[in-house]
């Protein structure tokens, strides 16, 4: 079957071709996606209905009072309505999570990470032309579209961006997570995100359910299939892709007997050429000052890094009245976990309750945020220097599993030692050393003594 070259744009069809095409059905939506879509639609219906009724403050109100009051009496009390709203919200989050965790690669990856909803040049032109056509400013034909046209892509991007915000802020408000200030912001962000989605939702519903041209799209969300003609007319690039896949599929099984000998490379994503990073770099010409300092993989000379660290330490003393630290942060994270896992034990244990201020989570402290910042700093510096790689630092002569065991054992010793000394190399060594605390220098003596002493015993594991 000779394969004619496929046209690059939809050409007018003869009636027979159109008739044939309209009979054939192409699969557009996977059943899981359809179920998710209608579940989502139902959730949005309930949540919008109760949500707008819940907002009673004139600052935020969107619905008139008669509506708010009607819904209140419907649910018996505003508290019941809130609990209903939260219950549906949680169900929504759980379902999406289940989809996200288990179905990610099969259903959502293609859409989110693939290029299915990525806007390209055609899409932008489509948007501008469509608007101008309605306003009678131009009658150019609409550029070919992917499986989702530009408008649908825009709405999909909006929804994928806003849904996490709505979910997170919703949970924060429902369970008063983190702090009051955060809940205050969550209220505002929740309303904004919902508002923006609603702005897109109107067109989505209008286009889907009301606009005649798009009627097949509406039914495709029920049957999962669209007619080839509709695909050809409205989503040409997607139609072409499906066509090429069909040919490749048939070719692979029928034409493989070697007659033509030339097997056209199978289409599909894997064929995307991957450009080796080194080559990419060379291409960009000689590295400038910024790149040489920050992007080069070599470490900085210790004195320069030392001065940088020293100035940061000084700034910390000047601003915060205390030095940098790390082991304290680990302790607070542990207490937070313990308080969450076994609150009774933590509150009553003589040691852990020292870290708990009544009415404040142990995470709200200088050290916890500082160590988190340190990880960010490390990440950025590692990223700039190209050192971001999931690796393991281990001596050449030992296996990974031994290294992991050593790391954990070393960690336990360090954790215990740090608490005993009330600080670690950064908290007590650096900061204590800078203020010339007597204990700090004794502590550093201990660290280096054990370090050098133990080195001989551990030489097999590191060298």
């Amino acid at each position, binding site marked *: 079957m000779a394969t004619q070259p496929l046209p690059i744009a939809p050409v007018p069809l003869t009636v027979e071709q159109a008739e044939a095409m309209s009979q054939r059905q192409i699969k557009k939506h996977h059943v899981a996606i359809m179920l998710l879509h209608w579940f989502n639609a139902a959730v949005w219906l309930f949540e919008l209905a109760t949500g707008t009724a819940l907002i009673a403050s004139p600052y935020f109100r969107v619905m008139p*009072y*008669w509506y*708010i*009051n009607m819904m209140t*009496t419907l649910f*018996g009390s*505003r*508290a019941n309505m809130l609990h209903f709203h939260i219950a549906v919200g949680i169900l929504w989050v759980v379902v999406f999570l289940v989809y996200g965790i288990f179905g990610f690669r099969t259903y959502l990856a293609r859409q989110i990470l693939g290029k299915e909803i990525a806007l390209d040049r055609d899409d932008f032109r489509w948007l501008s032309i469509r608007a101008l056509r309605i306003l009678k400013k131009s009658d150019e034909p609409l550029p070919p579209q992917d499986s989702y046209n530009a408008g649908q892509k825009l709405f999909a991007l909006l929804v994928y961006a806003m849904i996490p915000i709505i979910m997170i802020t919703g949970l924060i408000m429902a369970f008063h997570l983190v702090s009051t200030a955060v809940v205050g912001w969550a209220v505002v962000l929740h309303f904004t995100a919902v508002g923006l989605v609603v702005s897109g939702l109107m067109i989505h519903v209008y286009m889907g359910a009301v606009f005649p041209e798009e009627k097949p799209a509406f039914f495709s969300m029920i049957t999962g299939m669209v007619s080839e003609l509709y695909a050809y007319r409205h989503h040409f690039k997607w139609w072409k892709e499906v066509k090429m896949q069909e040919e490749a599929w048939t070719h692979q099984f029928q034409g493989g007997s070697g007659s033509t000998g030339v097997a056209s490379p199978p289409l599909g994503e894997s064929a995307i050429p991957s450009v080796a990073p080194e080559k990419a770099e060379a291409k960009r010409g000689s590295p400038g000052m910024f790149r040489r300092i920050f992007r080069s993989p070599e470490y900085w000379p210790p004195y320069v890094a030392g001065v940088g660290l020293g100035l940061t330490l000084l700034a910390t003393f000047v601003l915060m009245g205390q030095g940098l630290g790390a082991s304290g942060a680990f302790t607070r994270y542990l207490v937070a976990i313990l308080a969450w896992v076994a609150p009774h034990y933590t509150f009553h244990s003589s040691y852990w309750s020292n870290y708990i201020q009544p009415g404040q989570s142990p995470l709200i402290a200088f050290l916890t945020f500082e160590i988190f910042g340190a990880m960010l700093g490390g990440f950025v510096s590692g990223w700039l220097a190209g050192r971001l790689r999931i690796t393991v630092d281990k001596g050449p002569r030992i296996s990974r599993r031994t290294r992991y065991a050593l790391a954990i054992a070393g960690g336990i010793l360090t954790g215990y030692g740090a608490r005993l000394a009330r600080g670690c190399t950064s908290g007590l060594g650096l900061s204590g050393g800078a203020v010339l605390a007597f204990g700090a220098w004794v502590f550093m003596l201990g660290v280096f003594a054990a370090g050098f002493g133990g080195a001989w015993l551990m030489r097999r594991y590191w060298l």
Partner: protein
Amino acid sequence: MRDKFTRREFFRRSTVAGTLATVSPSAGSAKPHPPGWRGDTRVATIATNCEMCFWRCGVLAEVANGKVLKLEGNPDHPLTHGRLCARGNAGPKLLYDPDRLKYPMLRVGERGQGRFKRISWDEALDFLAERLAELKQKYGPESVAIFPHGVAPAFFLTLMRAYGTHNMAEPAFAQCRGPREVGYALTFGQGLGSPEPVDLEETKLMVLIGTHIGENIFTSQITAFAEGLSRGAKLIVVDPRFSTAAAKADWWLPIRPGTDIALLLAWMHVLIGEDLYDKEYISKYAQGFTELAAHLKEFTPEWAEAITELPAAKIRATARAMAAAKPAVALHPGRHTTWYGNDTQRARAMAIVTALLGSWGRKGGIFLPTEIKTGKFALPAFPQPKRERADGAGTRYPLASEEQGVTNGLVDATVTGQPYPIKAWIVYGQNVLESIPQRPRTLEAISKLDLMVVVDVLPMEQIYYADLVLPEATYLERFDMPQIAQSAKQPYIAIRQPSIKPLYESKPGWWIAQQMAHRMGLEAYFPWKTPEEYLETLVRPLGVNMDVLLTKGAVAFPGRPYISDRLPEDGPLFPTQSGKIELYSPLLKQLGFDPLPRYTPIEEPPVGYFRLIYGRAPVHSFARSQNNAWLDALMDENVAWINEDAARDLRLSEGQKVILENQDGVRSLPIRVSITKGIRRDCLYMVHGFGHESRRLRLAYHRGASDTGLMTRVKVDPIMGGTGLRVNFVKVVTV
């Protein structure tokens, strides 16, 4: 179009709608508690009295399944009528204080390290009985000294008297009320007792000399003080500091500290000089008036102005105001009155002014106590101690009370070994390191002891030096000797009964005394099994129905507060040697002291030093309540009041942390500075009871600074042994 359905309309309708939808009308904040219920738990209400300080206000404890939910004032209490101060309300946080002493502990390691091992009650009591027997045999029973405080040790003192020692001393005398009791007893033949019989709600003029009513909170006294003020009574406040009371005063006299006697003498001079005193009252009841008048010749207001730095006109004006209001003048005798070592003479002077105004036993002045005769147990005679009292009461300090004792006298005896060595201390409910000044001396005394026992509720600093520590149950968990308040306008008997079983292994005082009596063969002195039985015997002669007492918590009796309603069986009006008010005291003359109060100048603070004065805060009791979570949240540390100009000279900024160093070089913990106009330049004021050194008091440890720590110098009152505490000077050392 604007929704005409306005917001307020919306809410009114939604509430109505809410009701229509048969949701309970007050849907929303906490559901109402039906009577006898709190939320959904059945609640029992137990009437007892409070021990967060020594006023013992009436308290109702709401208890549900073994837990005290809330304390509230007891409306049936004859003195406090349902009112309760901040500390009273914070009782549950003492009961459930995680740092409480939980089980008996025996010292391991050196004294001062505070290292103990847990032992059972039997082991502890056997250990104590054995050591007491050993001490009695080696050094005699008098070698054991007891430092009690409050009502809890009452039964234990009976035990120790039966053991054979009379060396007992509580700070209530030599560090607090001593001088005033002795001064008024020398003048009117009887002391004042507690609650003070000051008729504040009926008075026309109140005079407070160094008494911080409003910062020192005794609930019923505050109610009377406030009622009096709102009825238009005038107020004179004599205080170097602009206290809460001074803020309400019509005359605030910012007197130079230590010169109160000069002011009082000047007042007497004006009252007698301008013939304003109550002539009829004095001629009828007093003697020694002529010697007094002669004595006052040259103590003119002008003379007093030079000493007290108070304008003579103001002294004259206040004297005349008192004369105008007499006899309804309530000259408050004060409560903590051990200030400069001449305190008994000052109390005498205040008593004489009260007499000149004729307000003793008169409406609006100082009313008289009414005796209540309670029942007694026929106990065998207590053994007569062979040697005299070690604390000098009756010997070194002739007029010191032998019933309350002189704490600093006992400390001196232990340090010097004179008149005989003291080998054991039993500190029961007292904080010897916080209430007795000269802390190094007390520690030196403790180092000389063979045995140091502490019975307490909280792990104060002193347990670090104790050999044996016994945990006592708090006032909400125990029976105590009932309060017989004879100095209230309506005398009453009020009981303390447990609202829940003692927590952890803490035990009530009566149980400890009874157990020790069995081990020491002194059962004869405890002829009752249960405290209810004891109470029954005590109350029977009063004809009080036990059930009413147990449910209401207190029963009042008709009072005879004024001279006019005295009955013959109340005994002589003025039980002095002469049977009259002794303006001139022959007893003092006979003991070699000034029969008439005289102003003797006291040492002034050296340049750069302030005189350390101290006082109370409304949310704390002495040094006891700093570890109470609710009270700590309201005031977690004390601050040092410093005059604005003095602070400017020292370049101090508000809230800055400084260290105070006294004349002997002793330094305090860091304390914040509070710069104010409301204190004289030469004084520095701080609230007593902070700067705790006990690491086991997690909320109170090292919070604020300790005034007692800075009191390394005292001036002992020769008449009754009280320790004048306001003789220490401090300078500010910036950190």
